[in-house]
Each structure stands twice: as C-alpha cells, then as structure tokens.
C-alpha cells in the first residue's frame, strides 16, 4: 500500500483491471454480467418454486382454480350477458386462453414492480447483477403458465372429443415458445421500468395493479380483435399485448390472425419498452440502495 496516488486517473491509463467501478456503467456490460450469473437466476427460481410449495397448502391447485373461475366469470359476463362473439371458438377455452397468457404478462409486470424494495436486505449486502432477480421472477411465473396451459389443453382435448374442430397442430408447437418469449420480453421490460420508477415513487406500486387491470381491457382478452371498430384499431397498434393474445389463440385454435401491420408495430413497441426498461433499471441499480 502506498500513500498517494500520483498517476493519472486509471481510466486514462493503460493498465488492465478486471472490475472497474465508475459513476456511469453501460447497459451492455450489465447484460453480459447477468449472463455470467445465470446459475444464480436458476437458484432464485428454484428457491421461489420450492418455498411456494412448502408454504401453501393447495400449492399448484391455485394455479388451476384461478384461471378456471376467471374464465367462467368472463363467459357469464361477456359471453352470456354482453353477448360478445368469441370468433367461433368454444367460449370457455376462448376466455381461458386469453386469461392465462394475460396472467403471465401481468405476473412478470407486477411481481417485478417492487424488485428493489422487496430485495433491499439482499441488495444492500451483496453485489450481483440486479437483473438476475427480474429474470428469475419471469421464470417462476412461467411455471404457473405451463400448469395452466396443461389444463387448457386438457379441456381443449375434451372438447375436441365431443365435437370437432380444434386440433393441436405443428403451428401451435412452433408458435407458442415464440409467443411466450415475446410476452416475457415485454413483461420483464415493463417490469424493469416500473421497478426503477418505484425506487423514486413508492406509491406507484399501488397504481401498477390497477393499471394492469385497465390495460387488460385495452387488449383483446375478453373479446376478439375482429370486433374492434376500425377507427379504434390504432390503439391496438400501440398495445403490444394485442399480438401475443391474438396470436396465441391463432396458434391454439387457428382463429383469425392479426394484420401484419399490428404485429410489426407491436414488436417495435416491445423493443422500445425493453430497451427503455433496461436503461431505467441500470440507472436505478447504481443508486437504489441509497434511497430504499
């Protein structure tokens, strides 16, 4: 150890450092750091998974009850009372397919809203790329989705036995992973942005659940895109969840897909959300522990 540093600032020097701590970090550096910690993503996922089953009596049954009851409610309210069309798809699976894909998005979004405050005891004591946590949350939510998808397929299969029309196709097998990746990207991106904002504005947490609710009605979950009047269709260009819900049904039931323009606009919005979320998150990450 020597007394005083007389050399110029290290950043201008030619020395090699493994870790450089400077006020501003770069987003791509953080992404590669998160990749190095992929084992930790898996550990957090496993922790959430195991503790969930150890703590609840009903365990995975909750995952089945919730979408079933929601789908039945939508069926009664929107199918029977409001008499909305389901694009020729059997109403129960129509609503259920919309619900479970929406639930996956909403879980990614709302469970990540409080990343910093919920993990402050961890974040305040040890460093790892904070991005690990939202990624693990997205993975944990995927478990619920897969269980619900099984139920949906089971019901679809039962309906197929009793009547005809719905078949699991190659289209479904190929498109579903893509749709899921898309929803996860969007959910994590939006979750990152919200979690960065809640560091500064804690009351925003309460708004997130409510906003997600409103957002659902702006998405073709309880109705079909084909019913949307043409003059309102520009809204759906901006709402990136339109693509995932509509295409998920298309993958399952071969219902009407979306105009290509909507899909492209949606993908663009999703990319913007993801990049914006990453940038906000990177900024929050640097100083979040000073305020939480």
């Amino acid at each position, binding site marked *: 150890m020597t007394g005083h540093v007389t050399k110029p600032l*290290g950043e201008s020097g030619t020395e090699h450092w493994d870790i450089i701590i*400077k006020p501003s970090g770069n987003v791509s550096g953080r992404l590669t750091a998160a990749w190095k910690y992929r*084992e930790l993503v898996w550990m957090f996922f496993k*922790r959430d998974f195991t503790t969930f089953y150890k703590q609840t009596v009903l365990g995975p049954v909750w995952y089945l009850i919730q979408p079933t009851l929601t789908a039945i409610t939508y069926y009664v309210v929107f199918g029977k009372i409001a008499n909305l069309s389901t694009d020729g798809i059997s109403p129960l699976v129509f609503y259920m397919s919309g619900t479970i894909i929406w639930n996956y998005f909403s879980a990614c979004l709302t469970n990540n809203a409080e990343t910093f405050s919920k993990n402050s005891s961890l974040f*305040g004591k040890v*460093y790892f790329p904070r991005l690990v946590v939202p990624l693990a949350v997205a993975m944990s939510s995927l478990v619920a989705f897969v269980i619900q998808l099984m139920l949906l397929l089971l019901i679809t299969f039962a309906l197929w036995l009793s009547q005809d029309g719905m078949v699991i196709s190659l289209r479904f097998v190929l498109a579903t992973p893509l749709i899921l990746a898309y929803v996860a990207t969007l959910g994590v991106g939006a979750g990152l942005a919200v979690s960065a904002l809640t560091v500064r504005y804690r*009351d925003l947490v309460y708004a997130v659940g409510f906003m997600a609710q409103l957002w659902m009605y702006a998405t073709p979950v309880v109705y079909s895109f084909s019913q949307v009047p043409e003059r309102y269709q520009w809204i759906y260009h901006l709402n990136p969840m339109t693509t995932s819900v509509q295409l998920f049904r298309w993958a399952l039931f071969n219902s009407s897909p979306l105009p290509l323009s909507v899909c492209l606009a949606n993908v663009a919005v999703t990319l913007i959300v993801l990049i914006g979320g990453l940038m906000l998150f990177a900024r929050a990450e640097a100083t979040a522990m000073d305020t939480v």
Partner: protein
Amino acid sequence: MNDIVIRAEHVSKLYRLGVINHGTLYRDLQSWWAKWRNRPDPNLSVSDYASAKGKQSRLKGDIFHALDDVSFEVGHGEIVGIIGRNGAGKSTLLKVMSRITMPNSGFIGIRGRIASLLEVGTGFHPELSGRENVYLNGAILGMSRAEVRSKFDQIVEFAEIGEFIDTPVKRYSSGMYVRLAFSVAAHLEPEILLIDEVLAVGDVNFQNKCMGRMQEVTKAGRTIIFVSHNMTAISSICPKSILMADGKVAAMGDTADVIKAYLDRPEFGGTASYSVNPEDVDGKAVICRVAVLNEKDEVSGTLELSKGFSVEVEYELREPLSGLSVGMQIMMEDGYTPLVSLSDPELDVSRLDARPAGYYRARVKFPGYLLNTGTFYVRLGISSRFSIYSVAEGIRFDVEDNVGIIQMLGQQRKPSISAIQLPWEVEKVFQRNSEGVLK
C-alpha cells in the same frame, strides 16, 4: 508483492438531503404545487440541530459527503484494516468497493475476483434446508455450483451441523444458523475479500476458529480488506490500516501508527468536550467547560458499553444565585431525550439556597450498560426557576460495544435505549406431583 490489486482514485460519494426526493409522487406534486404558488414547501425537512451540528463540516448545502476524494492502493496479498468512528465513511467505502452502490465521481480498479461479506447468511431462506441454503448463499456470494459441491463436505464439517443439514434452517438454533452461514462465507475463495465486522459472531470458540481460518486464507496469498470497530481484532489481523474520518482518508500505514492517529485525533475527544473562555462571555452564570469522561477519567468521545462514564461540568457564578440548578439532557440523533438529570434536584431543598459566587465543578457518574450503543448528544444548562443563564450544547459521544460483549453472548443488540442488566429473580414455585397436581 508490489502488484496493485485495488486502486481507488478520488472516489466521492454524495448523499442529497432535504427536498430533492420525497419518495412519493404525491409529495413531489405537493412540493411542486407549493413552489408554484410561492408557498413554503410543506415537505421541507426540519433538520435536527444535533445531527446537523455533528455533520456540518461535510454538509454543503443539501449535499452530504459520505466519501470525499478518497484515494488509496492495496497490493496483492495485503491485509488492510479500515477504522474510524461511526459515520466516518467506512461502510460507505465498503459498499462502493463491493458495488452495492456507485460513487458519484472517481474510479476504482480491481484486479481479480472479489467477494464481499457485509453480513453472513445473506439470502438465507428459513423454509429451505441447510443444504439448499448453502447452495443458494454460495451462488449469491459468487461461487459456482461446482465450486460449492466440491467444498460442501468441508462447509458442513466446519459448521458442526452434522445430520441437521437437511432440516429447514428455521428450526436451527441461532448458533447453528450463524455457524452454517459463516462456514459458507469462510470457504469462499476469491482473490480479494471485503469483510465488515462479521467475525464478531458466534461463541468464543467459533470466533477463534474463524480467526484461524482467516489467517489460513491469507497465507494462500489472498488480499483482505477488513472493516471493524474492534481495535484488538484489527491489530491482530491487519498489518496495515486506513483511518477514515469525515469521509476522507485521515491516515494510512502500519496499523499501530494508524490506531494511534485515530486515538489522537482532535475530534476524538473534541466533540466529547466543550469549553469557552469565561472572559468572552457575559452573564450571571457561565458554563465554562463540559467533558465526557470514560471510566479512567480521560476525555473520550467513544465509550464502552459495559463501562461506566461520567460527565463533568465547570461553571462560574458571578453573583450569588438561589434556586439554581445545572440540568443535563442526553439526546439521541433523532432528538429524542431518554434522560434528563438535574444537579440540584428540587427534592433536595437545602441545595437550592443561595450559592455564593465562584468557580464550581460538578460531576455525575453513569453506570455501565445504562445507555445502549449509539450516538448521544449532551446539552447542559444553568437555570433557576425563572431564567436560563447559560447553555452548552453540541457535545457528542458514541457508546460502542468494542469488546463484542453482546455478540459473544450470542444475543442481538437490545432494541431499547438502555442496555441495563436488571437483576431478575427466578424461582420455581410449584411442581406437578405424581398425580399430576401442581403443588
């Protein structure tokens, strides 16, 4: 040995105080609305006098310098202690080095794999078994799964957990919990290790074992930065040290010299005493000197939890005064007053008679454990029933548990203002006899 593995250059960390961030959107809007109408901000914080005084030198406007232009270098294989009083910036420095928070300016370069232990058992989940927690905690601390697996048996053996390794840790005793947590940390093998006082855990035997482990690790050529209040631990482990004071590096070099510099610092006793030249002050009664004394009667701003201390006040009466009392108030950082004491209580009527002019010295003794660990401020005043003659404030002292007595007993800090040990009497009154009747 001359390879530099950590170099910090002009590192500064600022905290903004006051109105900049209220934490809620509602309050931000409220402040903004008030500003727009030229009204005073309803959310402006009223800064506490005592805490503002204590940190004044580092406050520039709303900005508090937690670290102020810190530069140092650490060579490969060195074991460096960081000392300094509470709030001197030790923990902030450690947090910046461990990348928990970012500096506002400056640069730190680190060569090699780094791990920080600011706490043991970070991320332990009570529902998970000991085994699952070892893997989880290892991953959080930066170990790969393969690494944990290869050291797993050693970890369990070191922790003396045995067959309980597959039991959820919520059923562990606190001792077992800490031993397992420490054991994972002790088997971490980064090139650079940052440690914050975590050695002060567990019973004495386990502590010795940990110290042994530390020394073993350093023989393997690892670099260690160790932050502690515990001078004994620092001087036995670290050949070199850095002294932090007011967010700056105040001294660095051989530990013995640095500890001496720490004890010699003016502020070390400075804030623990107060003095004015009586000639400079008018008044019928003037407080000339106040000092906080440790049990050896030395002026000291850092008191040991288990030891008694006293407060001494000297004052001059320039004319005979009656009904006079010296009142002392001990305050905490948040302004709460846990203790008020009068030198001449109204119950003792004879002492309220007129006191002749002259120079007086009054002294009050406090028993050990009366105040819990923390920072306290003393305010003294001479008053009669109708007027206040003189007030002295801004005297500050810290009560610290340097011996680690609380952790040694395997307890946590009591959440009370006083840590006083009260004499409980426990007796068995009844016992169930063979018929199961309480008798």
